[in-house]
């Protein structure tokens, strides 16, 4: 008996058969890459002979794709009701160094345009972190390197370690989950350290995963990421608040060295001691200059007094001189006066003649004949009568 299926039943039967193939990993070159409504992604992968139509969600696409890129897609073929076969992709990753590099560049450009790596987003770590989360693989050399370098630095640090895979398909999911745990479950966390040792671009792929990079950029706690060797660059590093060149360097950047801090403390001790010493010196200088000023003023005062005494001396000398010369003047005047006194004049032979009214006679015209006159001489007086008046 022939079994007749409806078209739908047939499609369903084919899909059941396809499902039994399990997950397929297919490598091919991307062409016709297209994003629809920022939700769906469609592209073809092809080789020389065949083409496979691929379909996936934007969410599942964690690397940047472009036409011509060699990729490895993981997924299942599915026959659509419309009758065409679509390869439903769960994950896609670049295949080969060239594609990996190109994907890296494309994603870097995209995230840079979004400002994810902008310097102004970077936060500073506390000067002395007390509690940090360390995210890496416990088997990784990075884990030991980080702790070893930390040991030689400022001690007393509490480290919450969260183990994750640091490579392989599951690594991105684990790293994102670990970041989430650190940010939400750990208290008083000062920094999150994400490290991994060196490896090929493919090994380091988890740290170029778009979601991992966004999780690092979006971390509430400041992040420090050190991936690979010094020359390796990962996008997670660029998104971190602090980029370390290696896991050891991450330890150096998180915690300052004991010697460095010790030197700082010594410098500060010296600074306050010398501030105080300077002040002491200043005070001493002030006292000294005050004493100096006082003694200067004392000297000045003494000098002033001496000058005053000198002036008094010279004034008194001048007074003395002037008194002496006054004496001389007085003597001279006395002599003149004495010479001019009427008595002296009379003594020299002059006489004074008065009329009867007692007036001194100076002109002959004022005298009449017969008038009685009195003449005063040096030692007495005589009376006489005018007999004749001459001219």
């Amino acid at each position, binding site marked *: 008996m022939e079994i007749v299926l409806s078209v739908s039943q047939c499609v369903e039967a084919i899909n059941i058969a396809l499902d039994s193939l399990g997950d397929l990993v297919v490598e091919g070159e991307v062409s016709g890459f297209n994003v629809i409504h920022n939700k769906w992604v469609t592209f073809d992968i092809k080789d020389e002979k065949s083409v496979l139509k691929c379909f996936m969600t934007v969410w599942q696409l964690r690397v940047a794709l472009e036409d011509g890129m060699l990729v490895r897609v993981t997924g299942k073929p599915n026959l659509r009701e419309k009758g065409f076969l679509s390869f439903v992709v769960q994950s896609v990753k670049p295949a080969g160094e060239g594609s990996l590099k190109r994907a890296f560049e494309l994603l870097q450009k995209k995230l840079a345009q979004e400002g994810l790596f902008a310097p102004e987003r970077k936060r500073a770590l506390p000067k002395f972190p007390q509690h940090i*989360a360390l995210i890496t693989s416990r088997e990784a050399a990075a884990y030991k390197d980080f702790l070893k370098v930390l040991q030689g630095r400022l001690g007393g640090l509490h*480290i919450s370690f969260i183990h994750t895979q640091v490579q392989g398909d599951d690594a991105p999911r684990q790293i994102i989950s670990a970041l989430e745990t650190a940010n939400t479950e750990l208290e008083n966390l000062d920094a999150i350290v994400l490290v991994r040792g060196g490896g090929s671009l493919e090994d380091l792929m988890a740290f170029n995963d778009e979601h991992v990079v966004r999780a690092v950029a979006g971390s509430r706690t400041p992040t420090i990421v050190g991936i690979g060797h010094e020359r390796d660059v990962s996008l997670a590093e660029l998104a971190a608040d602090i980029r370390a060149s290696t896991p050891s360097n991450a330890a150096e950047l998180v915690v300052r060295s004991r010697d460095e801090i010790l030197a700082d*403390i010594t410098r500060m001790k010296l600074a306050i001691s010398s501030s105080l010493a300077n002040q002491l010196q200043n005070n001493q200088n002030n006292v000294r200059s005050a004493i100096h000023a006082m003694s200067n003023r004392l000297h000045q005062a003494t000098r002033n007094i001496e000058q005053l005494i000198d002036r008094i001396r010279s004034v008194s000398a001048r007074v003395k001189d002037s008194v002496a010369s006054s004496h001389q003047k007085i003597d001279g005047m006395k002599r003149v006066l004495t010479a001019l006194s009427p008595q002296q004049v009379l003594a020299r032979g002059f006489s004074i003649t008065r009329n009867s009214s007692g007036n001194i006679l100076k002109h002959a015209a004022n005298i009449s004949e017969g008038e009685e006159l009195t003449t005063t001489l040096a030692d007495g007086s005589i009376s006489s009568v005018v007999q004749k008046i001459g001219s």
Partner: protein
Amino acid sequence: MTEKKFDFTKGYSELEGIVKDFESRELDLEKDLPKFEQGLKLAKKLQERLQEIENTVQEIEKTYT
């Protein structure tokens, strides 16, 4: 997390504060002497704290389902 008797960060920034203060103004020997002594005390405590060698590592158990 174990509680520290002496908060290194706080002590360090307090010492930094004293240095800044002392360098920015004229000191009063009598009034500022206690502050100076406090600075030296802080420096000593910080140095002592620096001798603490051990870091503690605690693994956070996590299963990725």
